[in-house]
């Protein structure tokens, strides 16, 4: 069974994303939303850990509404998929549980 992790804190000021990455399994997904979308930047402090998980097969997503609101359209990593709320709903169904990191 797999977990969808949602992270809403910036990794530049919180260790929330780092904690999430630590316990994420290969089958899980991670959705960055609200200030969490800053975790999708190449400049993010834990970007290497993010790369490691993506290379291991973990799908990482960023919520479009929050990416666009923050002007990050061209700055989000290309290997992170930008999705909308409908996709968020689908992901919450695809995975068995949702763990909210805040």
């Amino acid at each position, binding site marked *: 069974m797999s977990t969808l992790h949602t992270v809403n804190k910036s990794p530049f000021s919180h260790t929330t994303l780092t904690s999430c990455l630590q316990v994420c399994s290969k089958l899980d997904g991670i959705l960055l939303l609200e200030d969490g979308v800053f975790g999708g930047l190449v400049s993010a402090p834990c970007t290497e850990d993010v790369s490691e998980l993506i290379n291991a097969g973990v799908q990482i997503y960023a919520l479009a509404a929050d990416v666009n609101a923050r002007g990050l359209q061209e700055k989000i990593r290309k290997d992170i998929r930008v999705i909308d709320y409908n996709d*968020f709903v689908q992901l919450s169904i695809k995975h068995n549980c949702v763990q*909210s990191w805040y």
Partner: protein
Amino acid sequence: MVPFLFLPHRLHCICSIIRFRYELRITMIFSLAIYTAPYSSQASHSAYRFALALLENGHSLYRVFFYHDAVHTASSLTTPQQDEINFTHEWQALAKKYGIDLVVCIAAALKRGLINQQESIRYDKTTFNLAEGFQISGLGQLVDAAVVSDRLITFGN
């Protein structure tokens, strides 16, 4: 009736597609737990947007449980600016349209000055401010939501 396997190939493909699309249309029961005050953080709005999306996708929303600072969403006295979203009204409208249970945790509510008529009388207060459409109840409702729902999503800050 002609057995499925003996249908002409093209019709077989069409039936497979229809059956595949039908099987994808799973409807789930959701509940949301919201912990953040409206306006103080974005999580309150994220929860609302998620609720809208799941309902528009044909799923059901059993309960929204307002805990911690989220109890302020249920105040009849919230008065945002005219060009700002009114969370209280939005949740009321959604609950009315889709029959959603909006529950406010009693312990979290009372200590934050959110009170319904019954508790107002009990505690000898001069007024009450729980908005219509919301009900005050205990943490058991959160547990019930977790048990009854297929998915429980938390929105916190």
